[in-house]
């Protein structure tokens, strides 16, 4: 049985991943099919599924909207609880394991907001948690609460829209007159702008697909096209001072007015460029196309398909809806096959969630790896190893898929750097494990893999992770060389640091750090530090050369450059200290742990340099975590500096030596200075 343990674990996780790859048939509205449809947002073609996810993240800082929760001590849907006056409303508490609230996933939410705003306006999506703002917008007693955060519905915010607008204009005016700057915004102002942005996005979504007052949109468009010529005639006759039909005039004015509001407010350009001479990027929104149709007498096919979807969705006819989606996909498959294919691939990537999946497997493998140290059961170690290989494969698949999707090297922003650092550390850990086979490699790979994917997951909460690159970064050559080399340097320095951490923890708190393990760990650390030196040096100098290529100076002492330089300096210090015999295993471990601090500073710290105490947002949250991490590493180094007699692993051998006659200094301490070379 034990023999098959690795295969059983790996098989279960592989099967689960494989199941996720299979197409899923949805009985009612085929949301997944709708999520594939492409649009052009933030300068890139992306599927509506990505739009849904990124928009909801920006509005709610979450990827779904719960429909049920607690009202006082009752459990139920929000509507029911509010009707029964069971207050306050709170989301599922973490200890309510038995409760699984129904949720709107991002795409479901987007569809509802675009086609049934009457429902969507009651969803609790707007995050407001600053007491000042709650007070000013008169939101007390409204909304739902989740662990101290409060969410409100559009309908609840409706009376406060004017206040938000007035306050935003006030700040903008002051900034336009140079009386204050964006950087000087107070907590209140930042929250205000975040809310205003969320409201703008929401209203943009609402106006993307249909006018405010519309039920059977498909039929309305047909009628509009029929009646438009008469309306145009009426307008012309009125302008010429001739007799005209008042009814025709009123109708066209009302319709065009509606479409005009759509055209200005819409977030999504859903209609692909129709004319062959246009740039492929010239997507427009439905409102514009409808206004245009007054002159042309027709609407593009995309508008008709979308109108059919709206009508079917509103009248709860899934079959009609699915047919309209399928027809539109088929139509796109002709001239817009590349855009559709991008949508299909990115949607697949979103649904498969390779990094999230890998993260869970890393966690499990980490537990198995630790378990191995408790009872030295070889099957556990091999299980952990196989699982990490599986997770590594999924991780690699995600990494490569992302590269192909973006047409870029692996690292383009902070998010992808976290993904890549994790990947690099996993590869190094697997290499170490296949050499030493003592569980150290698997625990390292699993721990760093897991933590970096958590970091990436949190970084992704900021919105689109595949945003377009600024002009100066728009060079695949330097992204592929400098950025990859520096990031590999980060990954390997973290691996060395983690090995140092294992050395100290095992040495001080357990008896498992025997002489041979201690030597093996030191060899691993030394090898990895060498590797890190190579990559961080080459990466840093390549960065200088890139700077020389793009603005004419090799080195400008700017914070990010300095951050990279510090890593090189530290790794070089470790190596020289080791060669000079100034440190041995224990010192190497402590110095390697300090490498964690240095690397985390370069990776995150430099991005936070200008940040004061009074600000919100992800970076500020990350700042607290960074400080906590640095403190933990300092504590660890302090523990590592405890004299050997306090180390559980060394105590016995020291005692044995003390009782034996004095021996000569062990070889290695007084090594000649050039011994390491």
């Amino acid at each position, binding site marked *: 049985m034990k023999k098959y343990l690795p295969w059983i674990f790996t098989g279960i996780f592989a099967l689960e991943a494989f199941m996720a790859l299979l197409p899923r048939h949805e009985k009612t509205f085929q949301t997944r099919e709708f999520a594939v449809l492409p649009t052009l947002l*933030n300068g890139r073609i992306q599927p509506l599924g990505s739009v849904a996810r990124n928009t909801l993240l920006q509005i709610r800082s979450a990827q779904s909207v719960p429909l049920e929760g607690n009202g006082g001590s009752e459990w139920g849907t929000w509507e029911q609880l509010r009707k029964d006056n069971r207050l306050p409303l709170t989301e599922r508490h973490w200890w309510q394991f038995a409760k699984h609230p129904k949720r709107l996933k991002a795409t479901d939410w987007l569809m509802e907001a675009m086609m049934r705003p009457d429902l969507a306006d009651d969803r609790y999506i707007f995050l407001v948690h600053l007491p000042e703002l709650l007070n000013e917008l008169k939101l007390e007693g409204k909304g739902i609460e989740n662990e101290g955060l409060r969410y409100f519905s559009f309908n609840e915010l409706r009376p406060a829209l004017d206040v938000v607008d007035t306050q935003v204009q006030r700040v903008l005016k002051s900034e336009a007159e140079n009386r204050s700057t964006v950087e000087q915004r107070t907590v209140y102002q930042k929250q205000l702008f975040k809310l205003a942005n969320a409201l703008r996005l929401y209203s943009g979504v609402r106006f993307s697909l249909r006018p405010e007052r519309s039920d059977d949109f498909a039929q309305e468009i047909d009628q509009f096209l029929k009646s438009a010529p008469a309306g145009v005639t009426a307008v012309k006759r009125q302008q010429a001072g001739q007799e005209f039909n008042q009814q025709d005039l009123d109708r066209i004015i009302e319709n065009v007015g509606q479409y005009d509001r759509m055209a200005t407010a819409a977030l999504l350009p859903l209609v692909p460029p129709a004319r062959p001479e246009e740039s492929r990027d010239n997507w427009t929104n439905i409102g514009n196309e409808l206004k245009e149709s007054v002159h042309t007498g027709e609407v593009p096919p995309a508008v008709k398909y979308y109108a059919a979807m709206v009508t079917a969705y509103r009248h709860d006819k899934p079959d009609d809806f699915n047919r309209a989606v399928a027809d539109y996909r088929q139509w796109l498959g002709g001239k817009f096959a590349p855009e559709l294919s991008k949508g299909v691939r990115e949607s697949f990537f979103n649904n498969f969630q390779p990094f999230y999946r890998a993260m869970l497997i890393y966690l499990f493998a980490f537990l198995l790896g630790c378990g191995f140290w408790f009872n030295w059961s*070889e099957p556990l170690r091999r299980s952990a190893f196989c699982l990490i290989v599986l997770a590594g494969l999924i991780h690699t698949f995600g990494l490569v898929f992302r590269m192909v999707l973006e047409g870029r090297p692996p690292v383009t922003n902070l998010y992808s750097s976290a993904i890549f650092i994790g990947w690099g550390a996993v590869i190094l850990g697997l290499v170490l494990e296949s050499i030493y086979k*003592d569980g150290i490699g698997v625990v390292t790979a699993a721990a760093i893999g897991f933590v970096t994917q958590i970091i990436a997951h949190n970084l992704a909460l900021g919105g689109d992770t595949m945003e377009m690159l600024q*002009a100066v970064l728009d060079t695949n050559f330097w992204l592929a060389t400098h950025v990859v080399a520096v990031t590999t340097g980060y990954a390997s320095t973290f691996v060395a640091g983690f090995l140092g951490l294992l050395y100290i923890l095992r040495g001080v708190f357990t008896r498992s750090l025997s002489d041979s393990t201690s030597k093996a760990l030191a060899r691993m650390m030394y*090898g990895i530090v060498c590797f890190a*030196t*190579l990559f961080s040096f080459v990466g840093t100098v390549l960065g200088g050369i890139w700077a020389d290529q793009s603005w004419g100076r090799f080195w400008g002492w700017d914070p990010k450059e300095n951050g990279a330089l510090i890593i090189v300096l530290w790794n070089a210090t470790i190596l020289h200290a080791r060669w000079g015999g100034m440190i041995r295993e224990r010192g190497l471990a402590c110095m390697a742990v300090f490498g964690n601090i240095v690397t985390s500073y370069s990776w995150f710290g430099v991005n936070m340099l200008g940040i004061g105490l009074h600000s919100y947002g992800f970076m500020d949250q990350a700042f607290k975590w960074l400080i906590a991490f640095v403190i933990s590493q300092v504590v660890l180094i302090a523990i590592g500096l405890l004299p050997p007699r306090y180390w559980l692993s060394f105590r016995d051998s020291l005692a044995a030596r003390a009782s034996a006659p004095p021996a000569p200094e062990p070889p290695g301490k007084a090594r000649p200075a050039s011994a390491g070379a």
Partner: protein
Amino acid sequence: MVDRFINILTSLRLTVVCLCLSLVLVFVGTLAQVDLGLYRVQNEFFRSFFVYWSPGGGSLRIPVLPGGYLLGGVLLANLLAAHFKRFKLTKKKIGIFMIHIGIILLIVGQLLTDLLAHESVLHLKEGQTKSYSVTERESELAVIDPSDPDTDNVVAIPDALLAKGGLITHPALPFAINVKSYFPNSFVTNRPADAVGPPPATKGFGPELEIENEPRVTSMDFRDVPTGVIELSAGQALLGSWVVSEYFTQPQTVTFENKSYQLILRPKRVYRPYSIQLVKFTHAVYKGTETPKDFASLIRLRRPDTGEDREVRIYMNNPLRYAGETYYQQSFDKDDHGTVLQVVRNPSWLTPYFSCILVGAGLLVQFMSHLIAFARRTAAKAKAAGPIKGRARPAAPAPAAVASMSANAKRRD
């Protein structure tokens, strides 16, 4: 004593101490940028021998950290000395040699860049042609004789000379210039009607102005605006005094012996035997965003003496290298119809390339040889000890693990 000094100079301990101090210097220098700005930090931390601390902003200067020049210098001396004393070029150490030569090249190259590189800026509106660029942090007082219809005769006096003050003469100048005062950074305002005391100068704009001395600018984003008061004289005759300032974009006229001269204090110009015209500037953004996709200047390069005449596109990451100088896309006008090109002359620009290759290859050689030796050792040990002991096992496995291991071993056999 000398022996001891040599021992210290060649020791790895010194290397480690210097590397640690460099790390501290770079870290503190980065944090200090938040308050001091990049330009001041560069000068006070990295291009200096000591970093000073003045308690309470007083005049007392206590050196608290060795500066970039000192640390770089000591590391370089340490490295060279160690090589002379200890290292012999053997096959085993070829990697170390390559790494260290690469590092020396990098440090020396950067020192040369510091000493020899020259930066200036070329600002062009669309259609405009210039055969000079300007140096942003230096000024010159130009006295222009425009009487020749083809070329202006210009005598340019650098700001360093103006700052010294006193009498300045030049064979091409019909008059002497006496610098009465010079402010490296200043503020010039209109003289209020009820001002007391004499105006700063008698001629040109002088009588209507008031000059205030300002502290030097430290931020990278702003520059000093110098102003001076000069007095012109020919022999015994006094022509009057003028205020010259970079606030004035138009020259002031001096008439002497029926000939007109123009006076202007302007950013220092560097002339070249070729001219550059901006044909078109492009600033593209990604559709539906404000993220810049491309900045590009299409320029026309003309050189009369060689008859060269061609168009070049300068854009991000793609500078123009021409006649020992490099033109980079640096900035642009708010209306998107003008460009700012950075012009750099840096004779040692290639050193980092060589250094990177040398150090990279050296590190690779060195660590690969370690790795191969390690792999050989492991393999040899495995062979000597048999399949079980060869694996680096924890020293005291629990009995269960031993059992499972021997089971493994049996299977292997």
